[in-house]
């Protein structure tokens, strides 16, 4: 199959996923109703459901999935380790912790807060990255990739222990809200969440595509990339910052959705090869599609409650991660 066809197939799957996502939910819309409402012929109720709830939710799922997938791909390129992922390295947990503190401190929920949320999450994300650097840095060897993973696992564990302490302070209703958010839920999203998420992607993704060759170079051996003339460590730091800038806002609007950043880059590499020129847009499409479909499945499985998308992605992603772990051999 040529690349063009692969892209077309992925796009078709994405489109079907979107239609699936738009038509499932509390009140089901048939395809016909969906089409009429899209064209503006629906009842006011249908329009409300579609334009105020379903469409922003779907777009948000897509953006979050894409952002997490690209963040994971960046981390894998930086650490030259196929098993890196913002969830495993603790970045999601850090962003989640500061978000949780933020949710605790806020008294009334106004829409202004939604735009500030990513900044809080960024704070947590950057603190974790700084810790990762400090703890996995070796004076002679630079950043030791294995150590990076151990440190990340430990940081994630530490943060979740701290979050458990926090859950004891909350009253049950607050708790249920935060729990659903933490498990990775896009359920209560509206347009303001989309607007809070979108700018980060619009700024970072083109920047990355423009510098795709640098990412390719980073994946080579350090001596080679240095001899080509790349100042490896500088770019490493830059791309690390980019990955936090993508992952943290995603966590802020959707909670922690793990395994997207791990599974999607692998799938994409198998489909589209290793050149980042192709894999960055492909990650956006596949990652977005995965979360859109997972979210729709979460809506569909049960009638009155929703299973958070993060739970469904973990149930699909963890086995795939294990498969990669079994296969990896270096």
């Amino acid at each position: 199959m040529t690349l063009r066809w692969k892209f077309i197939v992925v796009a078709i799957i994405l489109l079907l996923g979107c239609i699936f996502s738009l038509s499932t939910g509390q009140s089901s819309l048939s395809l016909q109703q969906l089409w009429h409402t899209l064209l503006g012929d629906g009842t006011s109720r249908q329009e409300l459901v579609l334009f105020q709830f379903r469409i922003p939710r779907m777009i948000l799922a897509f953006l979050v999935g894409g952002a997490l997938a690209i963040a994971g791909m960046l981390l894998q390129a930086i650490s030259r380790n196929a098993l890196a992922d913002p969830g495993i390295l603790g970045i999601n947990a850090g962003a989640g912790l500061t978000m949780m503190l933020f949710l605790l401190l806020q008294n009334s929920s106004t829409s202004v807060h939604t735009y500030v949320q990513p900044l809080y999450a960024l704070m947590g994300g950057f603190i974790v990255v700084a810790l990762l650097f400090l703890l996995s840095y070796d004076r002679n060897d630079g950043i030791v990739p294995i150590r990076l993973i151990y440190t990340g696992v430990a940081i994630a564990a530490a943060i979740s222990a701290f979050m458990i302490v926090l859950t004891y302070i909350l009253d049950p209703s607050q708790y249920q809200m935060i729990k659903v958010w933490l498990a990775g839920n896009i359920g209560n999203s509206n347009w303001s969440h989309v607007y809070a998420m979108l700018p980060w992607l619009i700024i970072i993704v083109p920047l990355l595509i423009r510098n795709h060759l640098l990412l390719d170079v980073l994946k080579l051996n350090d001596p080679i990339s240095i001899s080509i003339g790349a100042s490896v460590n500088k770019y490493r730091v830059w791309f690390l910052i980019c990955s936090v800038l993508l992952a943290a806002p995603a966590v802020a609007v959707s909670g922690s959705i793990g395994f997207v950043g791990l599974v999607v880059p692998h799938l994409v590499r198998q489909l589209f090869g290793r050149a980042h020129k192709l894999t960055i847009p492909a990650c956006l499409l596949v990652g977005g599609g995965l979360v859109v479909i997972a979210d729709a499945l979460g809506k569909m499985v049960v009638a009155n409650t929703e299973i958070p998308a993060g739970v469904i992605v973990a149930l699909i992603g963890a086995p795939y991660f294990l498969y990669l772990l079994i296969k990896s051999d270096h």
Partner: protein
Amino acid sequence: MASNVHKSSLCRSHSENSPETIKGAKKLSFFLLVILLLLLLIGVLVLAMALGAKKIPFSDVFLSIFSFDEAVTNHQVIQSIRLPRVLAAMATGAGFAVSGAIIQGISRNPLADSGILGLNAGAGVMLVIAMIFIPTLTFTGSLWLCIIGAALGAGLVFSVGLLSKRGLTPIRLVLAGVAISSMLTALSEGISIFFSVSQQVAFWYGGGLSGIGIVHLQQMLPWMLLALLLSITISKSITLLYVGEETATGLGVNIKLIKSLSLLSAFMLAGISCALAGSVSFIGLLAPHLVRYLVGVDYRFIIPLSAILGAIIVVLADLVARIVNAPYEIPVGAVIAVIGIPFFLFLARKERRGL
């Protein structure tokens, strides 16, 4: 393994120190350590019973145990609340520590711990399922469900090792444990959100020893003791397994039997501890490593000492959890994580083997 090599070279260079004297010295220091740690444990127990939301003088603690008087409130508090609680903390600590020690021994992997390996998450899934579908389940029933769950989690992690070409290296074990834990946690999260019991489940995950009565202790104690005895009985063979499977076979160890027995006792210990105290990680890492540092790699010594040290750690941690923010409690698992995580990092930094 390194210390064994060290020991044998020591024997050769100093011919006046026969292996027997060294062995005798080790045994002596082992018994000294046991006595020392037991004294420490008793001290910690008394302290834990005296301190809390209500301070109780030491004299009352002793009196309530040795000459119980129903009319005195302090005696009532000790007998019905504090004593069961510290005993449960003791049992939990011993259980998690020994199960960690056993798994480290047979998998020859320094980073093995029931929390990291997915045993606790497996127990959690089973407990959530029980909470929802079998609300009438007895405590003993939930014990066994937790044991089965622990076996399930560990089975999944170890099968990753069996399936991969280079076996279960430490990093692979950790990553497989993380993935399986988060998968099982996602599963219990999904189920508990669906049936809206998620805060109860989260409390369980945090680990807490409040609300444990004498009844619970009576039900779990026989099984706990059985598993501990089993692990002590096979401890010599575990040492040989740690040295190497070929050596063990050469010395007449039935590897399959020993492995299954030690896994059985590890699952029982971890499962029962989970049922008592929730998902508490890192004790299985802390206690055995400290003990190994003191007595070397001999599981006849490691297992009993880990049990005592683990008990001390959890009783202390539970005390801290109760008094830091009294009269409210913080989860004991979080207290242990504060010590356990730096320790994990310390161990991991030494680990230079790749995937």
